[in-house]
């Protein structure tokens, strides 16, 4: 296959700098029937997250008498990618659902709602690279919008290695032809990154590169965190304006 130059004159294919995020748009509370919801665009990704609960657990045998159970479903719409994707869970989306759920579990105060379930559904309407990070960001906003007690906010961003250079928030070409892709998710509390709740790696980087990648991801996550906050606050400020 023909080689594609991913970095030209120190810029990326879409003209971004190496540590620049794609444009992000977040809107909270888009679904009426859900307890909390969020629509999020991150570059070419378009995702919708819906949160229901805490509610009764069905089937009953899943319930935990000491805490709430959390169910996270990542799902890609058949039309979200160029070639039609067979609908329904597949190996990839089951795995993403699992790691994303585990990224959110330590943040949600499950012990407050024994014998109940918190269901999070995230639907990818259009996929670009890093859809799991977009989904986690959307899910986090939706959870807060649902009024679920949490320790902080989860913010997620990926770093890729392309032609030997680390780049923040890779797009599709960089993800497909790059050497490594490392999605991160952080717990951010009071504007400070407290811990890493998700870290995956596809490909290969050196120890130093991973450390640099982490620093880049942290800076990117802080920007996303601000946007997530604004999205939630806007919902209540906007109501103000309408009223006046």
């Amino acid at each position: 296959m023909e080689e594609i130059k991913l970095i030209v004159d120190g810029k990326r294919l879409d003209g971004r700098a190496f540590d620049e995020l794609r444009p992000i748009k977040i809107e909270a509370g888009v679904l009426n029937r859900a307890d909390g919801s969020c629509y999020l665009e991150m570059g070419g990704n378009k995702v919708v997250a819906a949160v229901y609960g805490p509610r009764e657990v069905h089937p009953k045998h899943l319930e935990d008498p000491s805490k709430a159970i959390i169910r996270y479903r990542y799902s890609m719409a058949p039309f979200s990618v160029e070639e039609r994707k067979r609908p329904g869970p597949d190996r990839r989306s089951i795995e993403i659902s699992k790691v994303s759920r585990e990224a959110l579990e330590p943040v949600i105060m499950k012990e407050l709602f024994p014998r109940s379930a918190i269901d999070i559904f995230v639907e990818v309407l259009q996929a670009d690279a890093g859809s799991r990070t977009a989904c986690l960001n959307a899910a986090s906003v939706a959870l807060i919008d649902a009024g679920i007690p949490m320790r902080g906010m989860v913010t997620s961003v990926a770093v890729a290695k392309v032609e030997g250079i680390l780049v923040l928030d890779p797009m599709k070409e960089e993800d497909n032809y790059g050497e490594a892709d490392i999605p991160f998710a952080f717990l951010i509390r009071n504007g400070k990154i407290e811990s890493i709740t998700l870290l995956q790696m596809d490909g290969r980087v050196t120890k130093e590169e991973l450390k640099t990648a982490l620093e880049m991801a942290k800076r990117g996550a802080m920007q996303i965190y601000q946007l997530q906050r604004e999205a939630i606050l806007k919902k209540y400020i906007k109501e103000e304006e309408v009223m006046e």
Partner: protein
Amino acid sequence: MEVSRKIVLPGDLLSTNPKTAGPNTYVEGNRVYARVLGLLDKTETTVRVIPLKGRYVPSVGDTVIGIVKEVTANGWIVDILSPYVAFLPILENPNMRPNKKPNEVLDIGDAIIAKVMNIDPKMRVTLTMKDKLCRPIRVGRIVVINPTRVPRVIGKKGSMIKLLKSELDVQIIVGQNGLIWINGDRRKVSIAEEAIYIIEQEAHTEGLTDRIAEFVKKRKIEMGLAKPEEVKGEREGKIENQGGEVVPEIPEERLKGDGNGGDKADS
């Protein structure tokens, strides 16, 4: 209208004194953080967050309105719009007679006003109807709002609910789970319902009671319930002009209005 209190998000630092930690906060490493999205209420002694969203979590003594989901041999299973279903034992329903079967007293789909009697550590909720407030609901209307807005519907020391009751002359019972029962004149109930939805929408703003009072007065005049002598002539003129949409509601009003006005005309 200003937002009276600052909106906080989960994880926001509220205080560095763990002794002040109030509801909907958590303490970690001697610092107090918010745990839900809500309005900050900070005083010298306590800091708490008033939630803006969220489900109803039962607590003992709450008045709730529920819908009977199932009838069993020893009681009723009641949906109280919370993560947990509630159980009303036969013994806790004073309407129960020894010669009656449970489904003859309350059947599936019936609405009831009850009190939370007990919650065991496994979150099994038991209700009781042994209270003068408690009753099965056969008439009136039930309005559903977000349970976090219930305190606003009640108002400071019941100011909001008193306002609605006195202005509209309707019976209102507010369930802590966000279900509100209103009974009375159908049009007045409609006004009360609209008012409650406004309260729900604008629960996080100041000066709400005054605005609701204004709204109720306005609606009463619009519906022809207030100041009948002054407004009546005008209104009747309007009806003939407008025709269409208002007519289905108005004829009843006119009948009622004529009842009063007619007496005067006779005398």
